[in-house]
C-alpha cells in the first residue's frame, strides 16, 4: 500500500504545475506509516507478554550474563590433551559413519518410496498411504525418532543410523515425489507405448528426468545428516553427541569447546563437500 502511495505524493510535490506549497501546507515526503508502527507496537507488547509467561526477567538475564562470563573463561583454552583427542577422534569418526550410512540407505530407499508417493505413477490409495508415511517421518525431529529407536534397538550407533535414515526418507521422498509429479509424462508414455514393463518405464522414462535434481537433494541431505549426527548422541544414539553430553555432565567445559569446534569444522566440511557434489552433477 505504502509503495503505491509514496511515488504519487512525491510527484505532486516535485511537479512544476502544482502551486508552490506554502510552508504550512508542505507535504511530508514520507508520510508516517501507521500500519508498520502499529505492527511494531503489537510486537513489542507481545515480547513483554511472552517474557512474563516464560518467566524471563532482568535479574535472571543479568545473573545469567555474569555466570556466562565465568563459564566462557572456563572454556578457554580448549583442551587438546592426547586422551581427550582420542575420545574426540572416536566420537567424530562414529558420527561421520552414522551420517554416511544414513545418507546412503536413505537415498536408496527414498527413490522407491518417492515413486510410490507420486500421484501420476502409482494408484491413488497407495500414493496417499506413502504420503501419510512421509508426513509422519518428516514431522518428527530426528532426535525424537532417535529416542524411539534407542528404546527399540538399544543405545549406540545403530539407533542413530536408523533415526537419520527415517529423517532422510522424510525429506528425500517428498522431493522425489514432487519432482516426479512435475516431470513431463510424454517420455513416460513413449516408453510405455513400446510395451515396456514397469521397471524399464521407471529406469528409461522417469529416472533420466529426475536424477539431476535428486543428486542435488542427496548432497543437501548428506550435509543435513552430518549436522544431525552430532545430535542423536545427546539422547543415546552414538557418535560425538554422546561424548559432548558426557563432557557437559562432567563440567569438562574446556573439552566441550574442543568438541564444539570439531563439530563446526565437520559441518563446514560437509557444506563444502555437498556444494562440490552439486556442482559436479549440474
Amino acid at each position, binding site marked *: 500500500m505504502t509503495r503505491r502511495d509514496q511515488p504519487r505524493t512525491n510527484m505532486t510535490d516535485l511537479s512544476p504545475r502544482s502551486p508552490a506549497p506554502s510552508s504550512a501546507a508542505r507535504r511530508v515526503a514520507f508520510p508516517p506509516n501507521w500500519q508498520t508502527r502499529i505492527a511494531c507496537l503489537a510486537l513489542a507488547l507481545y515480547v513483554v507478554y511472552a517474557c512474563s509467561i*516464560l518467566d*524471563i526477567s532482568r535479574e535472571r538475564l543479568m545473573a545469567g550474563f555474569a555466570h556466562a562470563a565465568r563459564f566462557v573463561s572456563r572454556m578457554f583454552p580448549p583442551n587438546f590433551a592426547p586422551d581427550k583427542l582420542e575420545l574426540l577422534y572416536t566420537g567424530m569418526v562414529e558420527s*561421520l559413519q552414522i551420517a554416511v*550410512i544414513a545418507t546412503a540407505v536413505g537415498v536408496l530407499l527414498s527413490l522407491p518410496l518417492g515413486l510410490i508417493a507420486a500421484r501420476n505413477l502409482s494408484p491413488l490409495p497407495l500414493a496417499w498411504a506413502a504420503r501419510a508415511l512421509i508426513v509422519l517421518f518428516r514431522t*518428527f525431529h530426528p532426535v525424537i525418532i532417535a529416542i524411539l529407536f534407542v528404546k*527399540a534397538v538399544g543405545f*549406540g550407533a545403530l539407533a542413530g543410523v536408523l533415526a537419520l535414515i527415517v529423517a532422510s526418507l522424510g525429506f528425500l521422498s517428498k522431493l522425489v515425489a514432487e519432482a516426479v509429479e512435475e516431470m513431463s509424462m510424454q517420455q513416460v508414455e513413449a516408453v510405455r507405448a513400446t510395451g515396456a514393463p514397469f521397471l524399464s518405464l521407471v529406469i528409461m522414462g522417469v529416472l533420466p528426468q529426475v536424477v539431476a535434481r535428486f543428486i542435488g537433494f542427496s548432497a543437501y541431505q548428506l550435509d543435513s545428516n552430518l549436522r*544431525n549426527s552430532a545430535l542423536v548422541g545427546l539422547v543415546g544414539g552414538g557418535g560425538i553427541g554422546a561424548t559432548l553430553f558426557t563432557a557437559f555432565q562432567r563440567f569438562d567445559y574446556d573439552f566441550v569447546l574442543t568438541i564444539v569446534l570439531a563439530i563446526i569444522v565437520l559441518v*563446514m566440511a560437509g557444506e563444502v563437500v555437498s556444494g562440490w557434489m552439486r556442482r559436479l552433477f549440474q
Partner: protein
Amino acid sequence: MITAAPPAAAHLRRWQRFTLAQRVTRSVFYLLALVTIVWSLRSIEIVPEFLYDAPQQTVDLFARMWPIDWAWYPKVVHDALIETLHTATLGTILAVIMASLVAVMVARNITRSVVLNSIGRFILVATRSVHAMIWALFFVAVFGPGALAGTMAIAMHSIGFTGKFLAEAIEEAKPGPIEALVAAGAPPLAVLLKGYWPQVKPAFLSISVFRWDINVRESAVLGLVGGGGLGMALDTALSNLYWDQVGLVLFVIFVVVMVAEIVTALIRSRII
C-alpha cells in the same frame, strides 16, 4: 574418393554428453563414495545382541503407548505446549533482530568493508553450525534449565539461517531508489528505512515466518536437554517410563508441527 571417408573420423565425432574431465571426476566421486560407505559399514560398532529382541521391543513400545493418557494433557502438556510456542516465537523475534544487524554488516552493497563483511559472514556460519540443542546445553549451564535457555538457544541458532537469506535479499535490492535517496542527501538511516526496507520487506517477512515454522519443530525437542516446553514433558514421561504419556506428547508435537506448517503456508501465500 567419396567412399573413402575414414571410419576413424566418424568414430571421433561420436556424440558424448559429458566431457572427459566430467566423466573422470564423476567416476572418482563414485569410487570415493563407495569406499566411504564400505568403510563406514565395516567399522561402525553395532552390538548384534541388541538386535535379537528389537522387533519385540518395537511392538512393546507401541503397545505401551496405547491407549494414550489423555488425562495428562490438562495437567502438564497444555502448559508445556504454550511454553514451546512462546519459546519458538520469542526466539524467532530475537533472532530476526540480531540477524538484521549482521545481515546489514554482511551485505556488500551497504557495508563496503571486506573485514566487516568477513566478520559478519563468520558469525552467520558459526551460529548456524552449532545446532539449537547444543546451544541449549550451553544456555542451560548459564541460565539454568527452563524456557529462557531454550529461547536463547533458538535465537542464537536462527541467526545464521535468517541472516544469510536476509543478506542475500539486501544484496539483490535495486540500486535505483537508493541512489535517488543518496542524491537527495538522505541520512544513512533514512536510506536503510526508505530505500532498502520496502525492497526487502517481502523477503524479510517470508524468511521470518519460514524460520518460525522450523523453530516450532526445534523448540519441541529442546526440553530434552533442559530447554523447557514439550521436550521437558517428554523427558519426564520417558524417565518415568510412562509410555502412554510419551504417546500423548508425540501426538501433541505432531499436531502442533502440522498446524505450524499450514499456518506458515497460508501466511506465505498471502505475502508472496
